Each structure stands twice: as C-alpha cells, then as structure tokens.
C-alpha cells in the first residue's frame, strides 16, 4: 500500500519525535519537515536522515501544495491560528498539537472515527490527552458528578519554550477538553513543572467530587479498561494509585512513561501527544487508501 505523505511544522522536540514515529509507520511517510529557525537542531537532524526540510514553515507547503496530504502542527497556539487558515484552503488534514482550542477536539479512544470527518483536529493538551479518557470513565461511573479536577506534574526539561509561553492556554484548553468530553458542569486543570534530577515522569491526579459514595469496584473496572485501550497507541500509560474514595471525593493517580523514541522516557507528556496524533493520522491514511481521497 502506498504511504500517505505528511508534513511536520515545528522542528523542536515534539516535531522531531513525530518524525521518528512517522518514519516507523507503515501508513505514513514524511515528505517535509519545516520550521522557521535556520539554526534548528531538528532541521539538521532531519536533513541527516534524508528528509526534505525547509525553514519557510507553512510557506513551503503553499509553494508546493502537492507535497503532503496530512500536516502535523507542533508550533504554538498563535501560529496554528494562521496555519489553519492557509492549510484549510488547501484541503489538508491537520493534526494540531498546540493548545489553540481551534479545531475539533480529539481523544482517540473516545472519538477517533468522528474526528476523521473534520479537517482540523486538535489534540487538546498533554494533560487533557492523558487524563480525559480517565475523567470520562469516572463520569460514566458516577454520572451525577458536578466537578472534576486535574493536577498534572511534568519534568521541567520536558516543557519547551512553547509550553511555557502557552501555560494559560494549556490550563484553559485542558479544562475545556475535560468539560467537553465528560459533560461535567465544572472542571479545573492545573500544571506543575518540577526540575528534579533525574526528571520525573508525567504524573496526573484526577479528583472527582461526588455526594453519594460510589461503587469503587465499578470505577476500577472502567478505569482498567481505559488503560488497556490507551495502551494500544500509548504503551506507557499506567495507574500509580487509586481509584480511592474518601471525604466525598474519588482520587485517581496515573502516569505516562514515554516510548523514548526521540524524547526521553520521562517526557510521557509529549509522547502521549505524538502517539495520539500519529494514531489519528494512520487511521486517516488507512481510509484514504493512500491516494489522498477524502474518507
């Protein structure tokens, strides 16, 4: 089967990790790796691997619109707003890894098929991508829940300049994602950066406030089912503690250990984004039958 061509915008750590995953895919091939910075290490590495590169970012696709069918955007929220306008007109299928809150929010285990009929797919945030499936399982177990909260900790080293400058966007997009997928009335998301050495793994604590004592056995069963489904595309997802119920709240602590493709293993927060994005792109590629036709 012919592979579907993808372009990667953003040549930082996430872009490079995407590149490694795309190169391994039997459905995708990277035809363009583009950014803005002339001295990007990512560009230099991609060139060494024989990948076509550009420092003209989205303009490189404008010049040669036939170069790709799928575009991964790992730049930043502000840039994606501009890219989406241009790429939308060209009919590209976009996977947005920035917290732009622009496109159709996708969490593969919850709405992969539905996502494929949209053109601009937003992967929300790392906290959202790793925790919304669990928040959804908690909500299904206790439908009367009125409040869900997520506290995430990531290693400082795994938070690049875009993550840092987009920290408000992260908080707002994660909260929006939790509310959207669970239907809960009110959600809250928080992010801690921890500089410890060796770096910490991504760590997510979900709290669910509930008036009635829930059936913790059912919650556990639902949560374990989520782990199994998520492992299909992000093998490093696991439960650290819980679910436990005390003082009117259910607590569940999970973690993501990265695959260690390009990013180090502690950067599970980035791995889950690139894993989810590639999973959606592969599904899209399978449907287009390698010919770029719309699914």
């Amino acid at each position, binding site marked *: 089967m012919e592979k579907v061509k993808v372009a990667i915008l953003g040549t930082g750590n996430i872009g490079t990790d995407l590149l490694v995953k795309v190169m391994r895919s039997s459905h995708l091939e990277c035809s363009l790796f583009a950014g803005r910075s002339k001295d990007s290490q990512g560009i230099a590495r991609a060139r060494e691997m024989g990948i076509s590169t550009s420092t003209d970012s989205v303009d490189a696709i404008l010049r040669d619109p036939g170069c790709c069918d799928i575009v991964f955007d790992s730049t930043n929220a502000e840039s994606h707003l501009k890219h989406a306008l241009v790429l939308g007109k060209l009919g590209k299928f976009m996977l947005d890894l920035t917290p732009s809150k622009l496109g159709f929010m996708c969490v593969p285990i919850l709405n992969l098929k539905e996502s494929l009929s949209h053109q601009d797919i937003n992967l929300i945030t790392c906290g959202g991508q790793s925790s919304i499936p669990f928040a959804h399982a908690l909500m299904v177990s206790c439908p009367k829940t009125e409040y869900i909260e997520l506290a995430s900790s990531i290693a400082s080293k795994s938070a690049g300049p875009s993550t840092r400058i987009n*920290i408000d966007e992260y908080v707002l997009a994660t909260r929006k994602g939790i509310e959207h997928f669970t239907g809960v009335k009110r959600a*809250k998301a928080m992010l801690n950066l921890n500089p410890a050495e060796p770096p910490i793994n991504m760590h997510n604590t979900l709290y669910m406030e509930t008036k009635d004592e829930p059936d913790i056995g059912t919650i556990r069963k639902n949560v374990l089912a989520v782990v199994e489904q998520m492992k299909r595309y992000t093998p490093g997802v696991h439960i650290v503690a819980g679910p436990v119920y005390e003082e009117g709240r259910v607590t569940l602590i999970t973690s993501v250990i990265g695959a260690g493709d390009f990013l180090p293993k502690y950067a599970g927060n980035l791995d889950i984004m690139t894993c989810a994005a590639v999973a959606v792109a592969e599904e899209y590629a399978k449907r287009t039958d390698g010919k770029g036709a719309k699914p």
Partner: protein
Amino acid sequence: MKEILIIDSTLRDGSHAMRHHFTAENVRSYAAAAESAGVKVLVVGHGNGLGASSLQIGKSLLSDMEYVSIAMKELKNTKLGVLTVPGFGTVKDDLEPAIKAGAEVVFVTCHCTEADTTQKHIEYVSSIGKEAIGVLMMTHMLSPEGLLEQAQKMQGYGASGILLMDSAGASLPHDVTAKVSALKKGLNVKVGFHAHNNLGMAVANALAAVEAGAAFIDTTMRGYGAGAGNCPMEIITAVLHKSGYATGMDEFALMGISDGIVAKFMKKPIEIDGVRLASGLAGVFSGFCPIAERAGARFGVDPKEILMELGRRKIVAGQEDYITEVAIELAKRKKETKK
C-alpha cells in the same frame, strides 16, 4: 534613614493556617485595621494564589474575587495586592477580574527555576500600568547565580521588583545574604524577601535580607501563615526600627492588630513543632505540613518521614498530590519490613 517597605500577606499566606477558610468578617475587619495602621500593600486571596482553590491544594471558603472585593471596600490608601502562580491562575480568569476589582500590585509567582512561565502574566500586568512583582519560590533549591538568572528574565518581562521566597523555611541568614546580594548586584529593580520560620530563622533571615540590600519584606501579622508561619510583621517592624531603618509604620499599632484581631481568629497558635521543623529540614513547601499530618494519621506513618521523603524527591509547591502517594508507599514499605 533608609525606608523598608513592609508588605502584609496575612490574608494570603494566613489562608494556609486557616485551612483556606477566612470568613468575610475576618477579611473585612483585618483589612479595615490594616488601612488604619497605614499598611502600604495588603495581599489577599488563596494561600497559593488566585485560581489555586482546589481539591489538590485546599478549597477556599469564599472565592478569590469575594476576598478581593470585601478587602477592597475597606481600603483607601492601602494598595490591594494579589498573587498568582501560572499553571494555576490565568490572566483571563483571574488577573483581569482581580485588577478590574481594584488590585494594584500583582505577585507573579513560580518555582525558582521556572521564570519563563511568568512572561505573559508579568507582561500583561505591566502593560496595563499595574505593578508586577516577580516571585521565585523555594529559593533554597537554587544557587545565588541561578536565582539571578531567573530574576533577570522576570525583570526583562517588566517586573518592577523581585521577591525571593524561602517557602520551606529552610534557609539560614548567610544563605539569604548571599542570594539577596547577588540579586541586588545584578538587577536594576528592587529586591524583596519572604521568610518562613521552620528553622526559627524568619526574623533573622528578614533582617539579613535588609542588611544585604533588600528594599521590601513580605510578612504576615503574628507570623500567621503556612507551616511554622512567616516573618511576623509587628516583630520585623520593631527590629528594623531598632536597627536604624524606617518603615513608615508604628509597631504599637501593629501589636494592637496582632493581639486584637489575629489572635482572635487564629485556628491555633503558630509554633515550630516537630512536623514543621522537619519540613524546614526536608526543604519542602511549608503548606504541606497539615496535609502530611492528615495522610500520616490515615496511613499510620510519621508525617515527619513523609516530609523527609518528599524532600528527597524534590517535590515542589503545588504538587500536594504526592503527599498521599508517598504516605501510601511508606506504609507499604513499613508493612513489608515488619514481615
């Protein structure tokens, strides 16, 4: 005579000691007293700042905006301050409404190594003509050179001052001297210091900061704050006067507020018990103490051991969820060694 600015964070750091349950009347009466005592800046809101009221850290009795507007009604000459930590509070949901309601000074805060998370918040505050102070927390975890580098970033974003927080009360006076001196030398903006008393050093550290060139000290009345409490406002004022500095405040007026208002709403006296001393030794955030006590009681583990382990793992402020996790692990370990 050099004048030192005394910031009053009783209604912010004191929130930890109140388990985040300041009542409207607590805030109203304290703010009115602060105004009449000539307090320059009064900081209010959740102990971990705007937007931090949560199951993770502790839910506030009233919303940050309620605290802001109750205090604001009592203030005329005293400026209202708020604190926020990016990752918890956002410009849109927290800073915009607080400033609209009257906040004039914003303490934009982060762990001491993460200054670049504060860029948008500091830029926003200074762009609308309000005062942004960059705050570095847990400063015992970073060298003077490292702190200077982070502080310079904040200065570059537009901060009009840098506040070093000894959030774990883990510093000794010579550490404070070295760090404040480094910042004083390398920055163009004023430097401040915020102490915790876990090692009994809060007043000594604040004085060391002033002698090294700090222009402002962040305090709480009667030391009412997280863990072993802060540098007490009335004491440092008296100490500074005795050391030949001016503060523009009257220590006797402050003593009146300390005894007449704070002593009456305090949940319990601020003291350095074993858990709080251990928190200082471990170098973990002072606000962790009551949570470690609860987790210790629940899982049958000494809270001091929990804090020491959190210190070894270099857990930072905001990561309260690790407290219970560590308690569970220590309980498991204890059970295994018994076998």
